């Protein structure tokens, strides 16, 4: 993967970080080094393997659709919220 100014711009946007103009060339160089280092992994032959993200075997356990409640727990959690009112969690106004 080749890191250029366009990709850096996208990364800035995604990370909400601004890279000073004077540092851009250096950052691009550093990012390229990191990516190239990861490229080493491509030397491994993975053609016969399925993509996986876990070393665990098998699927996720599933539970039956049966209700279990302990209303006190929810109330207790609510009471520890920084701010609550009439059973609601209260947060600063969200402007949509």
């Amino acid at each position, binding site marked *: 993967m080749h890191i250029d100014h366009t990709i850096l711009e996208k990364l800035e946007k995604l990370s909400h970080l601004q890279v000073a103009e004077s540092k851009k060339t250096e950052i691009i160089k550093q990012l390229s080094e990191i990516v190239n280092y990861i490229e080493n992994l491509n030397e491994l032959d993975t053609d016969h393997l399925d993509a996986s993200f876990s070393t665990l075997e098998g699927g996720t356990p599933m*539970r039956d659709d049966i*209700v279990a409640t302990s209303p006190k727990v*929810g109330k207790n959690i609510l009471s520890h919220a920084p701010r609550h009112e009439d*059973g609601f969690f209260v947060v600063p106004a969200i402007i949509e």
Partner: protein
Amino acid sequence: MFETVIGLEVHVQLNTETKIFCSCPTSFAAEQNSNTCPTCLALPGALPVLNLEAVKKAMNFGYAVKAEVNKRSIFNRKSYFYPDSPMAYQISQFDIPIVGKGALTIDFDDGSSKEIGITRAHLEADAGKNIHDGNISKVDLNRSGTPLLEIVSNPDMRSADEAVRYLKKLHSIVRYLDISDANMQEGSFRCDVNISIRPKGQEEFGTRVEIKNINSFKFVSAAIAYEVQRQTEAYEDGVYKQEVYQETRLWDVAKNITKSMRSKEDSADYRYFPDPDLRPVLTTDDMMREAQHIPELPDEKVARYIDELGIKRYDALVITAYKELSCYFEETISHGVAPKIAVTWITSELLGRLNKAGLSIENSPVDSATLGDLLVRVSDDTISGKGAKEALDYMFENKDRDIDVIIEKLDLVQMSDDGTILAIIDEILASNKDKVEEYRAGKEKLFGFFVGQTMKASRGSANPSKVNMLLKQRLS
């Protein structure tokens, strides 16, 4: 000339008893934040455990739209920051959804139909609700973790009409499968519209705008019409690039316009990655066997109604559009009423009265058994069609449902005895000798006069077809 390109994303709330990743009830709670637990409140250390039933309902939908159901699918974290999602991510599916490519068919009034592709359907957890109140917002997390099936269509629709037909078909399939209440007003069937325009003949798509959370078929239609106009005008005025960009818009019910909500996130913005708390979803043979139990769906019902019951296609489409309506119809004919008669009475007489009273078929004051009884009395000539309408009106106003008692009470019994009717006819003909002569001399219009007089003399109780037949005999 422009062509409109529409794709739809529908969020269907699955009607499980419990949430998708915890055992909290999904039912309505009187008190806010009472249907919550450490998992759906995202306390550190709480782990999600997948609801088997939610997976089966999703698979059931997959088989119903003849889709590929993936034996192995993956849950991902979709990160976004908003108070209605305390985890700061939504558990959803990304690369490998539970349901892959499928299709459904939409029908047009002229008898034609069109196949609309379904790209995918994936399981995810719903967010909570925010109530905005001055300089604070209140958060209720009762809905947090409710199972959703997001059904994504291909961009195969070309008009608001096609989009609404797709939605209605999808809505009815989901209701027939009984995997969701699919109540649009209550938000258990929510629709996002992706819409773009392109000059006719152009291969590539225009810039797509998403209109979020539209909660009625009528608004879907209106929002599409507005957006097509907005985009077309921008194109014609040469400002398409400036005014039409990838963004999320909202339908403003009060102003009948769409308005900008936020620029559309790139999927990279969501930092999707497999949820380490959940291993892959592996479906077992047992689950597949169960999920493949599909009830008779609207398309099959329409075909059966036409082929076996001799009903017109248009009527079959009307009756099957709602599960409750087709149930009502099937129960009515099980009482021995001819299907064609049942269709006419249900679609015109019953639905007409229900509409007027602001009721729906589920809470019809006249149930299918009672309507069946009533129509049997019409078929065996006990009462006339007119009499049955009177009885129907009566039942919309009163509580008693014994048809025979009502017929007697309203004096609806039809005179079908030949001798009695002939006696009246003979009397009429005797006192109108001049008209009988005119009739016989060729003034055939007078036949109606004789029918009218006979009916009047019987005080409306004579069986009209009998009157016709007997009069013809006497006058020939």
